[in-house]
């Protein structure tokens, strides 16, 4: 019983400890780092599920670190929202760990692999630490763990551009973290506490204080930088494009989501919703910005020729959806936003994993390289199709579920003019995704040679028609994510139940 009670801290300390152990034991067996990473992330996933179940039963878990009572010590406060995000993050981490072996073997120098896995674990630990904690300064500390790890992971990319992308991210990420630090400073000056629950109690009396306003402004800007909200997204495309495939997967699927979580927690958990709406029009500003993000992100994505860069810009657009749903601040939209955290993690994770498979097999990152790929990698391309349709928001995929809720939420908020924005985002993503899907199944011909068919009706092989699929260790996890894209698209009741509870809780 005792250990179950301590699960909230074990989910952080165990991966942290093993991240530290990985470099020590790597010299014994080459595969050991990967085995540890997979096992431990699986453990985290199981733990997060059990935490989720506990939360659903009891409402809220509070764990006092060091046994100190909350406003004095650090508290782990797990409620519906972070239990949900924690489950998403640990699940994606587990799937990506399973996937990572072959891809890392190919893309990372052998002697760097143990350090790579160590950093990878630290990255995940940092993200989970941000999610689980109930202390605002602790968020900063874990944010920095994950950020530092993230910089190094991105810099592992094969091209030298990765270094520059990583450096740009480092500068912007550090400015963001310092902004958050300033926000913490102001809010601490105003209230004298760092505990989120305590802040929530003490802040309403201070809503007229200019310090609190400034703190909110700095939190918003800092977190927007971290989660790559539209005009502050500049670091993201480069980072996702040049990072190794595995890193792109894990970052696209989890890092920005955790940023969104932190934003939700701080804007809605710390500052109450009444404050956001009545005292400064931060909600309105964010609605405008996120609408721009939806349109601009998708529009930029259309212009790309590099597959990963296209997906990165598409992430910028999708983050717009999440933020838009959140700042509409009604139950339907908030539910949509929270469930889109899961949904986008699933589909973007699947898409980046597909790119990883393609890179593993062919080394191609260009969109034009996918021409006629359905013969060569039918399963991978099927996953791409499923996840792509999901991005387009086609019904029976997860993309539809979140869009539905956000749109209904926009209408409930009386903002019918957001419907065209949401729809346009969908249509634009249809443009960049469908274009590729068509090329995959109906290859465009290279100039200068005619279509040729054999008697049986199949096309004469060109260089791509040879069946050559990625190894199963990569394909399996990828297909699992795609399957979930469909499963949660057909029956979204389970995640919706949690997302709705989280939304209700945030909007109280």
């Amino acid at each position, binding site marked *: 019983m005792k250990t179950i009670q301590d699960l909230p801290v074990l989910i952080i300390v165990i991966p942290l400890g093993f991240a530290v152990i990985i470099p020590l034991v790597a010299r014994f067996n080459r595969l050991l780092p990967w085995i540890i990473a997979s096992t431990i992330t699986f453990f985290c996933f199981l733990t997060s599920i059990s935490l989720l179940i506990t939360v659903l039963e009891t409402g809220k878990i509070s764990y006092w670190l060091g046994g100190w009572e909350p406003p004095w010590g650090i508290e782990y406060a797990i409620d519906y929202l972070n239990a949900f995000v924690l489950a998403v993050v640990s699940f994606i981490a587990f799937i990506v760990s399973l996937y990572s072996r072959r891809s890392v073997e190919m893309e990372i120098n052998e002697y760097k692999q143990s350090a790579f896995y160590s950093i990878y674990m630290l990255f995940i630990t940092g993200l989970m630490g941000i999610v689980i904690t109930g202390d605002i300064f602790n968020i900063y500390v874990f944010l920095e763990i994950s950020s530092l790890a993230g910089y190094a992971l991105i810099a592992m990319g094969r091209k030298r551009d990765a270094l520059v992308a*990583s450096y740009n991210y480092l*500068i912007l990420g550090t*400015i963001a973290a*310092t902004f958050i630090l300033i926000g913490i400073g102001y809010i601490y000056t105003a209230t004298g506490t760092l505990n989120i629950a305590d802040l929530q109690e003490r802040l309403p009396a201070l809503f007229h204080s200019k310090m609190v306003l400034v703190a909110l402004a700095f939190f918003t800007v800092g977190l927007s930088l971290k989660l790559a909200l539209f005009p502050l997204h500049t670091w993201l495309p480069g980072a996702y494009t040049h990072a190794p495939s595995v890193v792109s997967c894990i970052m696209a699927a989890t890092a920005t989501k955790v940023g969104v979580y932190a934003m939700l927690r701080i804007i809605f958990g710390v500052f109450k919703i009444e404050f956001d709406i009545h005292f400064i029009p931060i909600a309105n500003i964010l609605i405008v910005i996120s609408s721009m993000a939806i349109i601009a992100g998708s529009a930029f994505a259309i212009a790309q020729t590099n597959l990963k860069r296209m997906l990165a810009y598409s992430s910028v657009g999708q983050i717009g959806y999440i933020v838009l749903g959140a700042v509409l601040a009604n139950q339907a939209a908030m539910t949509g936003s929270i469930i889109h955290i899961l949904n986008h993690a699933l589909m973007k994770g699947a898409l980046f994993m597909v790119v990883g498979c393609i890179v593993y097999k062919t080394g191609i990152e260009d969109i034009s390289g996918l021409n006629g790929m359905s013969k060569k990698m039918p399963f991978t391309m099927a996953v791409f199709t499923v996840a792509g349709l999901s991005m387009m928001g086609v019904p029976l995929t997860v993309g539809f579920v979140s869009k539905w809720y956000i749109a209904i939420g926009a209408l409930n908020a009386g903002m019918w003019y957001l419907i065209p924005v949401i729809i346009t985002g969908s249509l634009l993503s249809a443009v960049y995704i469908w274009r590729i899907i068509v090329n995959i199944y109906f290859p465009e011909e290279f100039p*200068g040679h005619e279509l040729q068919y054999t008697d049986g009706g199949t096309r004469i092989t060109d260089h791509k028609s040879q069946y050559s699929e990625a190894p199963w260790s990569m394909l399996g996890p990828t297909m699992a994510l795609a399957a979930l894209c469909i499963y949660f698209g057909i029956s979204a009741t389970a995640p919706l139940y949690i997302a709705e509870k989280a939304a209700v809780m945030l909007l109280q």
Partner: protein
Amino acid sequence: MIDIIHFIQTKYYYLVVILLMMLGLYTTISSRNLIKKIIGINIFQISVFLFYIAMAKVKHGTAPILWDKGVVYDNPLPHVLILTAIVVSVSTTAVALALIINIHKEYGTIEEDGILAKQKLDEEWMNLEKQKLDIDRSSVT
């Protein structure tokens, strides 16, 4: 007028801190040199530390190390936070420097403009390669 003077008198510490922060931030944003950016960001962060420490100061307080009863102590919590923040700052600097060294090794420069120029060259070269590849493909089939 008196208000402003009073404001400056009572809060000059914070104002200087903000000035320092902005100097650091400006260096970070506007400089085109990678190391200069790091210097800027260090100044920025250290100024934020001063903000925390200034806020922890209590009039007639002493350092928060217990030595006698009935003494006024400064607020120890910001000190603790800043200890952590300093560590974070030096870690970031170390990683950034490692990146810069690698960038210099790959590009031979630590100026953003130089790097951009080289990236552009890379891209052009890639496009040329791609064209060549396309020509190869069409000639083969």
